[in-house]
């Protein structure tokens, strides 16, 4: 890895140069009623609207690789036959300008199941292979617990990673492409004082963590506590609304629906992000539902994130971004749920 120092004034130039491509980045979307700014990822054409000082976005950058709704194939229907067309729904490469470590790691995790396992999915891969990622450091919110999940630093999965040192950025250059793109900008080698600032930044980040999830032995504890009454309590709270799955950077479960056009000359097969909390997640043709209670569905969500994925890939599917907890109207959040399963004190009780 190559480390360089980039004056902040140079970033606009990099942005302008990269504007030959579509740029997606964090933008200010509005304020909540307490006056706190809310951010989300969107197409950015004006450098001044790019908010690299964002806290967290409400939604992850997931939709740019895994759209909530996506056409898998279309069919041209003739008298008694048909023809199938497949399109991966991407026309040109794009830049993700300003991803926090948790979101970079989220993509790395999705890669494992969507590209690295049997039946790699081309819809995801086509977008993933056409991204240029610029990471940015952050100060965690009180609800962030990426440290617990080991996702507070990104080791791979980006081209550039910026750490804000006040007047300048500490830049990690990961790809040759990024190195090329930085040519012509006034880069310098980090001085000892930059190292100090970088370490200070690291200390400040560490000091900001409040929420914590104890992951030791978690897969076994989840098995032991499979019948725990605690699940029922959480289930009783859950609205089965699917908000958590939408805001989550790693939820990828989906449903497929086929429709015929009104003129019957074409048909379409679409996937739609589904949530394991939705009432019909495990319903089969004929109506039988394997998980009719909200408690069993909520439990399944935790089993998938914190047990099943760990078994398959030796890491959790959760990156600790805290979005699900912040968005949940019923105030269900990962640190509290895991603590209650472990018979520990919940953060919200402190």
């Amino acid at each position, binding site marked *: 890895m190559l480390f360089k120092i980039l004056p902040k004034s140079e970033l606009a130039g990099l942005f302008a140069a990269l504007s030959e491509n579509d740029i997606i980045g964090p933008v200010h*979307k*509005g304020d*909540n*009623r307490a006056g706190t700014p*809310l951010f*989300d990822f969107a197409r950015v054409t004006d450098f001044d609207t790019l908010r690299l000082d964002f806290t967290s976005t*409400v*939604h992850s950058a997931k*939709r740019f690789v895994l759209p*909530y*709704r996506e056409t898998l194939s279309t069919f041209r*229907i003739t*008298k*008694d*036959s*048909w023809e199938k067309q497949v399109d991966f729904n991407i026309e040109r490469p794009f830049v993700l300008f300003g991803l926090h470590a948790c979101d970079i790691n989220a993509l790395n995790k999705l890669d494992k199941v969507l590209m690295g396992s049997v039946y790699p999915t081309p819809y995801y891969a086509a977008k993933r292979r056409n991204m240029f990622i610029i990471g940015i450091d952050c100060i965690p919110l009180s609800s962030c617990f990426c440290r617990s999940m080991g996702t507070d630093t990104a080791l791979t999965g980006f081209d550039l990673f910026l750490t804000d040192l006040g007047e300048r950025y500490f830049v990690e250059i990961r790809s040759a492409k990024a190195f090329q793109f930085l040519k012509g900008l006034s880069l310098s080698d980090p001085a000892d004082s930059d190292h100090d600032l970088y370490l200070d930044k690291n200390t400040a980040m560490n000091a900001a963590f409040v929420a914590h999830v104890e992951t030791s032995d978690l897969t076994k504890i989840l098995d032991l506590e499979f019948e725990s009454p605690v699940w029922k*309590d959480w289930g*009783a*709270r859950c*609205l*089965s*609304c*699917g*908000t958590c799955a*939408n*805001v989550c950077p790693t939820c990828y479960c989906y449903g497929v629906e086929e*429709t*015929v*056009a*009104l*003129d*019957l000359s074409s048909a379409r097969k679409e996937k739609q*992000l589904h*949530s394991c909390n*939705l*009432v*019909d997640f495990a319903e089969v043709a004929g109506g039988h539902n394997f998980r009719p209670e*909200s408690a069993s569905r909520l439990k399944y969500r935790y089993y998938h994130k914190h047990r099943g994925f760990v078994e398959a890939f030796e890491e959790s599917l959760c990156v600790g971004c805290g979005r699900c907890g912040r*968005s949940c*109207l*019923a*105030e269900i959040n990962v640190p509290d749920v895991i603590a209650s399963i472990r018979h520990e004190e919940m953060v919200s009780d402190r």
Partner: protein
Amino acid sequence: MGKEKTYLGVPVYRPRVAFFEFTSCEGCQLQILNREESLLDFLNLVEIVDFREAMTEGSDDYEIAFVEGCISRDDEVVRLQEIRQRAKVLVALGSCACFGGVNQLKNRFLDQGWVHRQVYGEYPIASLPVRSLADIVTVDVSIFGCPIKKEEVEKIVTNIALGKSIVHPKYPVCMECQANENICLFDLGEPCLGPVTRAGCDSWCPNNRAGCWGCRGPADDADPQRLKAIMVKHGFSLETIIDRLDCFGGFVRESARLRDELENVGQTGSVDPGGGI
């Protein structure tokens, strides 16, 4: 029409359909006539034999009856029962037909005589408390919404033509609202019935930063008690919640329950958010 239409060799069912309206604004039928670009394809799939808003002639020979509006008079009851007898399939079109719609707000007045005098004066008209179609006859298919979405009607008609079953989303509006990456209305300080209302509208109102009023009725697993807890926690009064739940008639039982609670609050002076929050 010439030869019988098929889809992948399977005959397509082209039903004779009729449209009827009872107490309503007739806006749902208007939705169907809007979007001229797909109207011809729509007419290829069905044979419309009666549609007062679109044609002059009418016929009693139909298989599917699309019925808009709620029932608020004696003669409407009789006419609805006649339609039910003739139709193989009766479709409730829109919130009024499904739940009574905005019209059923009338039922909330304790003094119905006063309502009648305010609206009709001395005009001799026998206006009954509002009922949904299902209160009187068997409804085979419901198309929710105020107004209905034409795309949804088109999809349902296509499904009928092909023999596909008609399924509505079972989950609440939040699912669609978050997929549209809206800011949650609660964050903006707006009340919203999204967490309990059946999806399918693609979060039409929240997309425009307006809270959901529940026009599509309750989602399959809806828990209005939980919603109440959330609303109270966000500083909304029971009256606000009841107002919302009352609006389209899909949550009549829940709002009645909350009204009882409100009377108790009147006595004790405190609101219990309930639901463990």
